[in-house]
C-alpha cells in the first residue's frame, strides 16, 4: 500500500502546491473560474503544456530534445504560411504542419536510434537544422491566421474554451497511446534499454515512434501559439526548449528515462504558468519572472532528490 502512495507522492505534492496557488490566485482575481478567464489562461498555457508533454515523451526514453523549440517554430511557420480561410483551409494547414513536425521528430529519432550518437548531441545539431528550415519557410515574422479562428480560440466558441478542450484531447490521446504495447515499451526502453532489447523489443522502432510523437505534440503547441498570437514568428519557439525541460523536471520526469507520469508534467506546467501570472497581480516587476522560474526549479528538484536520498543512501 505504501508502495502505491510513494508512487503518487510527486503528483500529490504538486497538487497541494497547485491548490495553494489557485486559492491565492482566486483571492487576487475572483474571475479565475469564469469561462473567459479559463479560455484566456488555457490559450496562454497550451503551448508550454504541449511542449512539456513532447519533452516528457523524449525524456522517458532516456533522451532529451534540444531541438524542441525550433520544431515548434517550424510547425508554427508551416501553419501560418499555408493556412487559408475556412475550415478546410485551416485543417489542411494543420495536417501539413503536423506532418512536417512529426517527420522532423522521427528524423531526430532515427538519428538517435541508428547513429549511435547521444540524444543531446543529435538534437543539438538538429536544432540548427530545424531553425534553418523554419527560416526558409518563414524568413520574417508574419503569415496569416484566419481572424475568425483567432477570436474563437481566444475568446471562446459558443462558450467552449477551445484551448482547454485541445489540451484535454491531446492528453486523452496520450493516455490511449500509453496503454498500448508501444506505451509500455517506451517505459521499458527508458528504464533498461539493453534489457528491453534482449527481451525482444525493437528498441529502435520504439525510439523513432517516441520522437515522432514528440514531434506531433510539439507541432500542436506551435499551431496553438500561432492561433493565440494570430501570426507566425520564426524565432518564437526558442525559449520553449529549456522551459519544456524545466517543466518536465518539475513534474518529476527523470533524465535517465523510464520514470515519471504525464499528469505530473501537466501539473508542473500549470504551476509554473499560474505562478508567473501571480507575479503580475502582486505588482512585482515581470523582471522577477525569470528568477522565480529558476528558484522554483531548483527548490522543487532539490526537495525531491534529497527526500529520495534519505531513503536510499
Amino acid at each position, binding site marked *: 500500500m505504501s*508502495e502505491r502512495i510513494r508512487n503518487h507522492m510527486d503528483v500529490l505534492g504538486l497538487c497541494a502546491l497547485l491548490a495553494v496557488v489557485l486559492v491565492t490566485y482566486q483571492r487576487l482575481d475572483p474571475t479565475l473560474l469564469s469561462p473567459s478567464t479559463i479560455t484566456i489562461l488555457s490559450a496562454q498555457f497550451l503551448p508550454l503544456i504541449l511542449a512539456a508533454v513532447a519533452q516528457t515523451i523524449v525524456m522517458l526514453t532516456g533522451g532529451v530534445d534540444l531541438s524542441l523549440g525550433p520544431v515548434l517554430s517550424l510547425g508554427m511557420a508551416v501553419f501560418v504560411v499555408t493556412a487559408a480561410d475556412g475550415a478546410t483551409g485551416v485543417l489542411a494547414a494543420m495536417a501539413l504542419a503536423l506532418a512536417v513536425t512529426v517527420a522532423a521528430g522521427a528524423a531526430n529519432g532515427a538519428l538517435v536510434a541508428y547513429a549511435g550518437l547521444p540524444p543531446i548531441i543529435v538534437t543539438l545539431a538538429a536544432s540548427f537544422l530545424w531553425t534553418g528550415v523554419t527560416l526558409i519557410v518563414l524568413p520574417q515574422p508574419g503569415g496569416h491566421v484566419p481572424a475568425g479562428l483567432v477570436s474563437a480560440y481566444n475568446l471562446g466558441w459558443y462558450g467552449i474554451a477551445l484551448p482547454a478542450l485541445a489540451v484535454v484531447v491531446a492528453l486523452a490521446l496520450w493516455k490511449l497511446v500509453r496503454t*498500448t*504495447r508501444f506505451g*509500455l515499451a517506451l517505459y521499458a526502453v*527508458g528504464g533498461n534499454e539493453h*534489457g528491453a532489447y534482449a*527481451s525482444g523489443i525493437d528498441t529502435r522502432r520504439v525510439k523513432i515512434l517516441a520522437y515522432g510523437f514528440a514531434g506531433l505534440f510539439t507541432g500542436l503547441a506551435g499551431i496553438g501559439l500561432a492561433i493565440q498570437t494570430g501570426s507566425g514568428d520564426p524565432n518564437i519557439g526558442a525559449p520553449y526548449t529549456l522551459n519544456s525541460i524545466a517543466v518536465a523536471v518539475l513534474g518529476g520526469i527523470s533524465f535517465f528515462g*523510464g520514470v515519471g507520469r504525464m499528469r505530473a508534467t501537466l501539473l508542473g506546467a500549470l504551476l509554473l504558468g499560474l505562478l508567473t501570472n501571480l507575479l503580475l497581480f502582486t505588482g512585482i516587476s515581470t523582471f522577477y519572472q525569470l528568477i522565480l522560474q529558476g528558484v522554483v526549479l531548483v527548490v522543487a528538484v532539490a526537495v525531491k532528490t534529497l527526500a529520495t536520498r534519505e531513503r536510499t543512501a
Partner: protein
Amino acid sequence: MTLLSVENVSKSFAGVRVLRDVSFDVRPGEVLGLVGENGAGKSTVLSLITGLLAPDAGTVRFDGARVHSGIRAWSPHRARAAGIASVHQELSLNPHQSVAENVFLGAWPTRGGLVRHRDLVARARPLLSRVGLDVDPLTRAGRLPLGAQQLVELAKALTGDPRLLILDEATSALDDDQVRAVFRVVDELRAAGKSVVIVTHRMGELFAVSDRMTVLKDGEVVATRERAATDHDDLVKLMVGRELSDMFPPKSKDTAAVPAEPVLTVRGLAVPGSCAGIDLDLVPGRVIGLGGLQGQGQREVLRALFGLRRHSGQIDMDGRPCRLATPREAIRRGIGYVPEDRKTEGLHIAHSVRANLSLPSLRALAPARSLTTVSRRQEARLVAGLVDSMRIKASSPAQEVRRLSGGNQQKVALAKWLPTKPRVLLLAEPTRGIDVGTKRQIYHHLRELADSGMAVLVTSGDTMELVGLCDEVAVMYEGSIVDRLVGAELTEERLVHASVVGQEVTHV
C-alpha cells in the same frame, strides 16, 4: 534427434578469436551443462543462440533450420518467437515497471490493441507461483531483492512456453530455497520434453540438474561427458587443464598464542534497516569472514566501515575513536574496499589499467610541491610493479579494463589499493563469477597480504571459500552476528548449521 545444434562455430572480436570450431547439441527433454573458466567463451556461444551476436563461421540450427541465414537476421526478437528463452546473470528487468509488466516485457497481452493491467496481473500470478515467488505483481521490480528479481526474470522466460531455456549464471544471486525453486522448474521442463542449457560456476548445482556437460576451454570444446561418466575433479581438470590441489593457502600460524592488538575495533555498529549490534575485531595477520545466508547485512557492514553507508556505533582505530563518514576518510585511515559490484563501483571499466591502478594513490604521485602535476614516470613504475606482482594479464597498461577477463578485472580492483598501504582490507564476494584458476591466485594473494600485517575482512556466499580462506568466520542472520567460528569449529557443516540455527532462533 536434436533440438539445437551448434556446428563448427567460430567468432572473433577485434582480431581475437574467442570461439574456434565449437560444436555441441541439445536434445529434446535434456539439460545440458555448459562449463568453463571465465573467458572460455560460454557467454559468446549463448549470445549466438539468443541472437545477440552472429557467428563469423559455422551454423546454429534450431529445430533443424539454420538460424543465421535468410533475409532477416537472427535477433533476440526472432529467437524468442522461435521458442528460445534466456535468463542471464545481468538482469534485463526494468526496475521502474511493475513485476507484472516485467514478466511480459516486450510481449504484453493486449485486448483491442490496449494493454489491460488486470489481465497482466491475472496472467502473471500463476507464472510467479510456478517459480516460487510470492509478491504483489504490482510491486515495482526494482524494489525486490536481487534474488527475487532473478526469479521474476525466470518467470518472464517462461511466458512464451519456451522449447529451449537458457540459464546463464541465473542462480548466482539466489539462496538455497530459491535455487531449489529454479531446479523444480527445470525438472518440469525436462519432464515436458523441453530442453535447458545451464551455465553455472557452482559445481554442486551443475551435478544436481545436468544430464550431460560440455566443457569449453579457451574458446574450444574440450569434452562432452554424461553426468554418470564424470565427477567434480575430472571436470575441473578439463576446465583448467591441470589439477588444483592447493586451492587454499595455509592459514595463519597459531595467532592465538600471541594475540595481536586489533587495528580496528567495532562495537555496536548499526546501519538502519540492515544490521545492528555488530562487534568485530580486525587483527593484523588474520582473515576474518562474514558468513550466513545471502543478504543478512554482511554487505552493509562493509559499506559502513568504508564510509559508504550512514551508521552509528563505536569504531576505534588503534584504540582511538575514529569517524568513517566518507570513503575519503576511510582511505586516509588506511582502509581499502573491493566491492561486490566491480563494474560500477570497483573499477572505471572504460578507463585504462594504468588509470585505475593509480587513482587511489594520486596524492603521492602528484604532491602539492610539484603543483599537483602527476608524474608520469612514477606512475608507470607503480603500475608496472602492480601488474607484475599481481600477475595481471593485460596487453599493455593502456588497455581498457573492460577488455580484461573478469578475473583480471578483480585483480585490478584489488591491486589498486596496495600502493596506499592499507592496514585494513574489506572485500565483498571477492571471487564471484571468477574462474577456478584465478580464484586460487586471489586466495593466495589475500593470505600473503594478511601475512604482511594487513587485517582482512571478507564477505562471501560461498561456504567452501569462507572455510578454506578465513581464520575466523562471524555468521550473520537478519542483521546480527549469531555465531563465531574459529579454528577446528570452522567447518562447512558448522557454518551452514550456524546460518540455519540463526534462522531457527529468531523465528521462535
